[in-house]
């Protein structure tokens, strides 16, 4: 019996059927491209997701700065990473792509600013 899931690599949303043995992927069907296979393997062996949220920013016209993890984060670290982000406060100016935090939830993955905000006042 295969496990069914939808590939999230692109908006197409292929429906995958995964065959799993001993927590290893043995086969995948339903994917239209190679990314589907990579996604299936990662889902079985180490599921990851890109995490986006907001952090507090001072001296900018907005109160919040959108942020994004530089790489997909192990799924089980997402809630811990979100909690860490609640305590982050940065000051404008900020450039898109600037590192906001070096190590998210002990994963070694960086958190980046997702937009530029000028300093005001």
């Amino acid at each position, binding site marked *: 019996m295969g496990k069914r899931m939808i590939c999230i690599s692109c908006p*197409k949303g292929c429906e995958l059927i995964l065959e799993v043995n001993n927590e290893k992927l043995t086969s995948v069907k339903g994917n239209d491209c190679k990314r589907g296979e990579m996604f299936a393997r990662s889902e079985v062996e180490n599921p990851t997701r890109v995490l986006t949220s907001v952090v507090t920013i001072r001296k900018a016209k907005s109160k919040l700065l959108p942020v*994004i993890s530089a790489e997909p984060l192990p799924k089980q670290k997402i809630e811990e990473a979100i909690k860490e982000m609640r305590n982050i406060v940065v000051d404008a100016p900020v450039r*898109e792509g600037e590192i906001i935090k070096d190590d998210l939830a002990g994963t070694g993955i960086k958190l980046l600013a997702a937009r530029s905000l000028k300093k005001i006042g």
Partner: protein
Amino acid sequence: MKRMEIDVAVIGAGPAGLAAALEADRMGKSVVLIERSDDLGGILQQCIHDGFGLHRFKKQLSGPQYAQYFIDELNKTDISVLLNTTVLSIEQKVIHAVNPTDGVLKIFPKAIILAMGCRERTRNQVLIYGTRPSGVMTAGAAQRLINLEGLLPGKRAVILGSGDVGLIMARRMYLEGIDVLGVYEIMPNVGGLARNVQQCLIDYNIPLHLSTTVVEVYGKETLEGVRVAKVDSSLKPIPGTEEDIECDLLVLSVGLIPENELSKNAGIQMSPVTLGPVLDESMMTSLPGIFAAGNVAIVFDLVDYVSLSAESAARGAVRYIDGNSPKEPPCDIKTGENVSSLIPMKYHIDYKGEDLYIFLRAREEKHDVRLCVTQGDNMIRQKLLPVVRPAEMIALKLSRDDLCQITGNMPITVSIINK
């Protein structure tokens, strides 16, 4: 009163307006970009989730990142940007606008590109019975409160409708500590993209109830709960299936409508199918020199296509200004079998542009189909597709060679048939 003469005026600085302004600027025209809010980027600035730009940038950006690319480009140009500026009307191709610094402005452009985007359907448009408590809002409003204002709109949420914004908000609210009790969808299928069901609902064990809807809201001042019920095949609630759910937030994700008050008041012919202006291959409306781009024309689901449509409109506007607009009468492009809506709706055989995209939606989900563009018995372009779904817009590129096969002004039909 301040007066301004310009080649191209773009109304709205979301993804469509930014792309249109940049393309017109690249082609050497003077451009003014008019935006009613105090920020560039439009709705992208509150869409902090990733998944934007896969076609254009070959990576998954968040909304603000996608916008930032265009804003950085804009900052390198001489495009005039008018923020906090509301366009009141367009009369005889003259734009009347108002802002706090200039007061009333009169702008005399050679061409106008409408890029006002779309807005969300509200509770009034889905007719929910009950009281009028606070705590009932659209998914976009909840998104704005959480991602821009830093406010949590409730503690226990129910989502009505399974459009993409609703699914994205289910995950967002969950991660911000709101108890997301479920997503209720009146149709038997999901409104948004399949991948959003996976990464926003299944990932976080948020239940999805199809063929179920909210029939009543209750609560005096603030929302206290909603009543849901299953519906039959004609979408009528089935008596005896009602269930009450205690919640203080009802989030509506029940569809988007192109925002066309300005277009209608300007006298532009509208399409009852797309709810946007009737457009030709250059995205020109029924009023010569006025073009439309992005969600004001048809509701897209990928921002990449919004940008494409905007660049196409900008090139059309430049051809118009340079006197290169088509002169021949157009042929109609019609929706055929299993096609619910499309743009453009008209094609001129003396169109001088390059490739042409037809953007369309399927009426129902079908597997292994053939997408066909025909004129009479002549097959102009066909493409095999493994699957078509109403939620996923199809972009079909017609090359110059394809376009050369179009003759006279007999209507062109786009249809999706069995392979």
